[in-house]
């Protein structure tokens, strides 16, 4: 759609202009200009140090994502398929989701110490809940008429689950995974803030410590681009599945 691509460009351009204006207003102690930030970001991408940090973060993030997604789906499926368990657990899950995870940070640090397992734990406690909640709701919200259709067609429980329930619930499960991954990334970065001497989160903390404004913004920009692309690709997968692939 040509008009929408043009719109995106105008929007991005508008944001950059706004950024530049704010930069002129507040000065170099607070912000760096878009140009300087982007230049620094590109520079960082070519340094080895950056990629060392990026790899540390990505490996922790990947492991945490796998645990969040697998764990979340298993929990969500179990609670979704068993009505009573789901009814009991639903408000508990909702509360756990909205508790500020910062209240758990001291506990996690004390349990896991410093290092990659703490980072992964941070990531998982952020990401597992939305996956579980979305999955549970996806299963519970499968249209009753689909259950009746499976019944009248005399499908076995396995056939019904595999050929009707799963595709019906899949779009919403994927939405949960999308949210879960974004939060897992955030959690991993926060973990690096407190519990690590490597990773992008650590690099950020170091930059914050010496008030290297351009570095802070450049790293944040890179994180944002990474997160946004991940999000957009998952969105595409979700749309593809909704139409049956």
């Amino acid at each position: 759609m040509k008009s929408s691509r043009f719109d995106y460009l105008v929007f991005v351009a508008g944001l950059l202009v706004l950024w530049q204006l704010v930069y002129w207003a507040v000065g170099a102690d607070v912000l760096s200009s878009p140009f300087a930030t982007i230049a620094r970001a590109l520079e960082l991408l070519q340094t080895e140090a950056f990629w060392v940090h990026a790899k540390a973060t990505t490996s922790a993030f990947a492991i945490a994502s796998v645990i969040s997604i697998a764990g979340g789906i298993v929990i969500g499926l179990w609670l979704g398929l068993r009505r009573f368990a789901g009814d009991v657990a639903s408000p508990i899950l909702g509360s756990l989701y909205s508790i500020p995870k910062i209240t758990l940070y001291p506990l996690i640090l004390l349990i896991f110490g410093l290092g990659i397992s703490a980072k992964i734990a941070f990531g998982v406690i952020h990401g597992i809940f939305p996956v579980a909640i979305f999955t549970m709701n996806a299963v519970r919200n499968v249209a009753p008429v689909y259950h009746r259709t499976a019944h009248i067609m005399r499908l076995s429980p396995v056939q019904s689950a595999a050929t009707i329930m799963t595709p019906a619930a899949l779009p919403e499960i994927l939405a949960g995974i999308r949210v879960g991954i974004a939060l897992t990334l955030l959690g991993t970065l926060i973990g690096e803030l407190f519990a690590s001497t490597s990773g992008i989160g650590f690099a950020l903390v170091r930059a914050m410590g010496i008030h290297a404004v351009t570095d802070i913004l450049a790293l944040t920009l890179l994180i944002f681009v990474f997160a946004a692309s991940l999000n957009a690709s998952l969105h595409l997968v979700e749309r593809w599945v909704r139409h049956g692939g």
Partner: protein
Amino acid sequence: MVGEAGQISLRGVTKVFPGHEGHPDVHALGPIDLDIARGEFFTVVGPSGCGKSTLLDVLAGMARVTAGTAMFEDKPLTGTVPNGIGAVFQQDASFFWLNVWDNVAFGLRRRGMPRAEVERRVDKALAFMGLTGFAKAYPAQLSGGMRQRVCIARTLVLEPEVLLLDEPFGALDQQTRLLMGDELLRIWRETGATVVLITHALDEAAMLSDRVGVMSARPGRFIDIVTTEWPRTRDSRIVSDRRFGAITARLWDKLRDESIRSLAVAGLARAEEG
């Protein structure tokens, strides 16, 4: 009403849903005595909440009766759906992740039918329902009436001997309903299936059926069964027949009081069910 058993035979059938957490039991249906002959077009009309859909569940073998016997082809219905029964529901049951062709092929594939046979049957069903041009479309791109046709095609392709329809045209406008009614008659004639239709529309019941059963308010029992004596070749233009008005009047005469009664019960019932 009670006599030689038909293809479907209900004797003293009652359905009670047990109450939970302090709520009283819900006596949804019965006692019902009913015989439906092979190849008959039988319609059930009744006020909202009278148990029509529960009756359909019983006929399909999806619900076990609390009392009485329900027989299909001289074998008792015990809570598993027997072979040879198909159903179309009121809500849209088309699978949004499959296109029309795959939707219709769904049931056949589950039975492990060879691909050539599946193709043959699906193409035939699509042609029969006028869906050939839409084979690649997804349900989200179709209107409500088209989606119901997909569901009907998906059911017909399995060549059921009994076709159960639970207010299948509920979401459609009147003109489309009348045309779909004609289509249903055509399907009935050309497949020779037994059709049991549930509807709240009296004119639809009067024009389509061989017999119409009028149900009371909950717990639903048959308070009248009207025989229309229409010829097999009928279509929606039967409305101009002299007897059409009399039949509809008789249905409404029996139904009016039950409808008033059920309006009072319905609100309470919905709260309990919800």
